[in-house]
């Protein structure tokens, strides 16, 4: 029996409603309801994907129209959920990794008074994210798009008594709204061009539209993707978003939500297929961000921010790949999945370390934790091997393919991807060494201990996926064949012998690892307070000027504009009115003196008014 796609969304949504509306009454069991909803939707997703797999390869699709949302003057939008091979992999990722992170959170948030509310928001996120990937039209996708933004806002600011968390939440939402501006423009332009916003109709007619229009739609979509996926130039919110509880960073700001931009481009590939300009812009954004994020990752001492820089960088890889056209789409999605496994695992691992270290995030206060937290260490290490691309771990398969197609596209793209691999190896080795090796630099009251099983079991599952997930997706699931009916398939040609690629990649990775080992490896003395560092490290630590740019170019002029307009409104616009109606002040002053004058003056004005009306009418009538 095939489950209903709408049910997939409804289960976590209903659970969220229950958790948020019943308040303290559900404190005792709320987290288990939250977990049950996540696991329940995972089972539904599994059922849907298995049913889908039984359909003929070329036309796999399960679609359900639930109701007509808006129907006005030729503008018709239905609430229709569609499971196709592309959304299938997403619903499994969202509900699967989502379930693990829900379970982990039972332990991680155990001592938080508002754990129930936390699970309510997590469920809300899952429902919104599922809506995003199941939507069969752009406007419904927009609902999921801003829905995940809302959940992200609520969860980043979950500890909102901390001003830093509240500010980070605001920043995330507002920067994302800049991206949403792009998505709005894309929706509107799509409708005036195609008379529909439903994917099947739009994509079927895409080649009939003018190339300028297509390029504009593509660029508007890219702006949206930049906001949600923290890509240059809208990247700055993601580092601040680490203010949220760590499971949030793992689920929303690593494994799923931030990859929505990649999904958007892949979903709308018929648009990008038609515009080399839009594709070029996607590649450029991806290449810049993959290097930026990696460089930022080098300099951060906060383990979560180092991982956040890494996330930016890894999504940069996916962006780059998805911008390459048919040769890259599938590899972008492949990397998105493997990254979902290993990055979620490492974030949860970082959370486990924090859990055992009194919420310390500064890696300069870590060190030598491998024995105190054996499971955390072991699982983190697998994630580490996966992300730097050591065979046969998951990231190796996907990153290798991206580097290959990037070279097939151009030397610049390939060079950026290869350089990124070296830097990735460097900063991840640094994280690994600073956290688990070397001397203990713990604070006096730190007593590191392994986390409870409810937290370590998800770590083990994600580590297993990080170990074999890449190989399995490629060779057991045959991801290429699975996605091909939706994303198409392209063959490129390497500018050099393909046998050189693997040794080249492994060499730069080894170089990165060795360089980090030299600085942070055996016997290295890591001071508890960060040294000043070179200009390069200082720039990286300051997020390569992202915030400075926001401050100088957006915030300060914005504040000046606001202050000016408030003054103008008060003195010029209202001043003119007060000037014209100078008698207003006089009148009101007089009214204030005589208490009863208030009603009397009013009556007088009314009488005068009535007389004017009567006279005017009479003059016209009898003139």
């Amino acid at each position, binding site marked *: 029996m095939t489950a209903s796609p709408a049910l997939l969304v409804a289960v976590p949504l209903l659970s969220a409603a229950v958790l948020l509306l019943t308040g303290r009454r559900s404190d005792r069991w709320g987290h288990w309801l939250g977990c049950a909803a996540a696991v329940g939707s995972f089972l539904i997703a599994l059922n849907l994907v298995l049913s889908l797999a039984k359909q003929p390869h070329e036309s796999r699709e399960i679609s359900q129209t639930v109701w007509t949302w808006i129907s006005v003057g030729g503008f018709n939008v239905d609430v229709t959920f569609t499971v196709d091979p592309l959304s299938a992999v997403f619903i499994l990722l969202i509900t699967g990794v989502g379930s693990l992170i829900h379970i982990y959170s039972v332990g991680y948030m155990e001592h938080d008074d508002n754990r129930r509310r936390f699970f309510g928001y997590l469920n809300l996120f899952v429902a919104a994210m599922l809506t995003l990937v199941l939507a069969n039209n752009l406007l419904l996708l927009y609902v999921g*798009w801003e829905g995940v933004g809302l959940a992200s806002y609520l969860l980043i600011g979950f500890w909102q008594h901390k*001003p830093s968390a509240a500010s980070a939440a605001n920043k995330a939402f507002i920067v994302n709204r800049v991206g949403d501006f792009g998505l709005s423009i894309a929706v509107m332009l799509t409708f005036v*061009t195609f*008379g529909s916003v439903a994917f099947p109709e739009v994509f079927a007619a895409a080649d*009939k539209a003018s190339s300028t229009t297509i390029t504009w739609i593509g660029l508007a979509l890219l702006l949206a993707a930049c906001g949600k996926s923290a890509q240059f130039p809208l990247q700055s919110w993601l580092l601040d978003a680490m203010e949220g509880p760590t499971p949030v960073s793992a689920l929303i700001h690593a494994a799923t939500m931030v990859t929505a931009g990649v999904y958007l481009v892949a979903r709308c590939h018929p648009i990008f297929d038609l515009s080399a300009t839009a594709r070029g812009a996607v590649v450029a954004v991806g290449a810049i961000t993959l290097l930026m994020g990696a460089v930022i990752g080098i300099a951060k001492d906060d383990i979560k921010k180092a991982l956040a820089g890494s996330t930016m960088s890894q999504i940069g890889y996916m962006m780059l790949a998805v911008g390459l056209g048919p040769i890259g789409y599938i590899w972008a999605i492949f990397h998105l999945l493997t990254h979902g496994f290993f990055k979620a695992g490492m974030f949860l691992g970082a959370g486990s370390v924090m859990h055992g270290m009194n919420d310390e995030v500064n890696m300069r206060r870590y060190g030598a934790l491998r024995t105190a937290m054996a499971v955390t260490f072991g699982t983190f290490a697998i994630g580490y091997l996966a992300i730097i691309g050591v065979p046969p771990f998951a990231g190796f398969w996907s990153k290798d393919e991206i580097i290959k197609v990037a070279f097939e596209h151009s030397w610049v793209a390939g060079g950026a991807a290869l350089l990124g691999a070296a830097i990735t190896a460097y900063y991840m080795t640094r994280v690994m060494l600073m956290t688990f090796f070397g001397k203990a630099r713990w604070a006096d009251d730190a007593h590191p201990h392994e986390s409870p099983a409810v937290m370590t079991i998800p770590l083990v599952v994600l580590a297993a996926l990080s170990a074999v997930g890449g190989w399995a997706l490629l060779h057991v699931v045959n991801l290429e064949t699975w996605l091909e009916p939706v994303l198409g398939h392209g063959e490129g040609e390497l500018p050099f012998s393909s046998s050189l690629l693997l040794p080249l990649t492994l060499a730069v990775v080894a170089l990165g690892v060795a360089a980090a080992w030299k600085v942070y490896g055996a016997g290295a003395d890591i001071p508890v307070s960060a040294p000043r560092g070179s200009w390069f490290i200082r720039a990286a630590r300051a997020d390569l000027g992202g915030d400075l740019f926001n401050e100088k170019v957006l915030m300060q002029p914005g504040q000046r504009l606001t202050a000016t307009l408030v003054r103008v*409104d008060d003195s010029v616009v209202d001043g003119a009115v007060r000037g014209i109606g100078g008698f207003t002040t006089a*009148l009101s002053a007089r009214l204030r003196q005589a208490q009863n004058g*208030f009603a009397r003056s009013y009556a007088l*004005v009314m009488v005068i*008014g009535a007389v004017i009306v009567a006279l005017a009418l009479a003059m016209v009538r009898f003139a």
Partner: protein
Amino acid sequence: MMSGSTPWLTILLLLPLVAAAAVAAMPSGNAENVKRVALIGSLVPLALVVFLGVRFAGQAAGGSAFQFSEAHSWIPAFGVHYALGVDGVALALIAMSAVLVPAAMLAGWNDVEERGSGSVKEYFAWMLVLETFIFGVFAATDVFLFYVFFEAMLIPVYFLIGRFGGPRRVYAAVKFFLYSLLGGLVMLASLIGLYVISGQQLSAPSFSLFDLVNLDLPAGTEKWLFLGFFLAFAIKAPLVPVHTWLPDAAEQGTPATTTLLVGVLDKVGTFGMLHLCLPLFPNASRWFAPTVLVLGVVGVLYGAIVAIGQRDMRRLIAYTSVSHFGFIAIGVFAMTTLGQSGASFYMVSHGFSTAALLLIAGFLISRRGSARIEDFGGVQKVAPVLAGLFLLAGLSALALPGMSSFVSEFMVLQGAFQRHPAVAAVATLGIVLAAVYVLHMYRRTMTGPVSGAVTALRDLRGREVAAVAPLIALILALGFFPQPVLNLVNSTSSWVMEHVGATDPQATVTKAGQ
């Protein structure tokens, strides 16, 4: 017309008036009883409106845009009729008003006691009188009758602000009154002009909307007459730059009064543009449309930016409305079905959403004794229900999908984009600014450490939740299921589009294919 059938609209108009008289006649001794009678007096019309809505929807498929029509000659010498009838927009706005009046009453239950002076009876009676005039102005199909209600609405609001408002209430009330009076007089001049022409072109002069839409106006005259109406409506709405009375009125009025003022009365302005300006002056409307669109865009951005800079919550919310009225004006003058239906739906959802925001801000302000944003901080910790509802109302103000405001704002922008992509694109920047003003207000008041005097704030009482929770529920329900209301307002849009002589642009691809 339709004599013999039940005069539903007259009954609807009379219900609050009767309740007002009952309230006024009650002994002042038991204030709670007075309030209860007033509340019931506002719930009965709501029930009737629901009944009318169902009947309207059942008959709408049939034909005429207007239903429940009644017409009686009132001043035969001037061709003035007592003529009522509702089209979809009018009925939707009447329904919205019928919801907001009891909500405002519940929220303002203790306004008079908290002020320490004034009469409970007077306060509630004026609200009921206002409700009658509101129903009248939306239901009038005689333009003179419309004008009478339009001006009559000023009286209760003037008293509600002037007698029950804050320290600078008299200044605010007089400013509101003079502004509106100015607009009203200019409209009156135009009205007389229309009447003169009707005398020349029709067998007998008439103020009936249905007669006046058929006039053939000389081009120059039409523009002047349009301006008269438009100015009155622009002040009422209000559009930039004739908006400065609104922040003062919002700051000085009680939250209940401000809710009715911003939620309902201001809609008469945008309602008038759609419902009177366009059908009465089609050529002039099209001629002025680009100007109005620019005014709308300026209003969207200007209102939002000035809102960001406000320190008083009530003024901030007033400026957000200035921004939102810019959106509505854009929708009306985009001259597309999507834009007009969007603008109509915007009026309804803005009513609920601003009411929720204003009333919750009011609860907060009365608890703390200050409306200044900097006097708050950390409220979420001590009053989570209040904070949660405030956030929901705020999310509605920033048009989050799932809220009715999203549907309406998107429709307005999409409708404008069909004809004027640049206008729509610039106006879309408003969604970023809306996020800034809503979230900054929320952050500064609700988050962070609990600041001094906030510690003692208590969370919402049952009565207060009962006032705003239905509004939030409506916002969400209409966000997911807007179609019943859209069906209502669509009938008006097609009527207006026909009279203004506009047709929806076709999709580029379809056009190219033909």
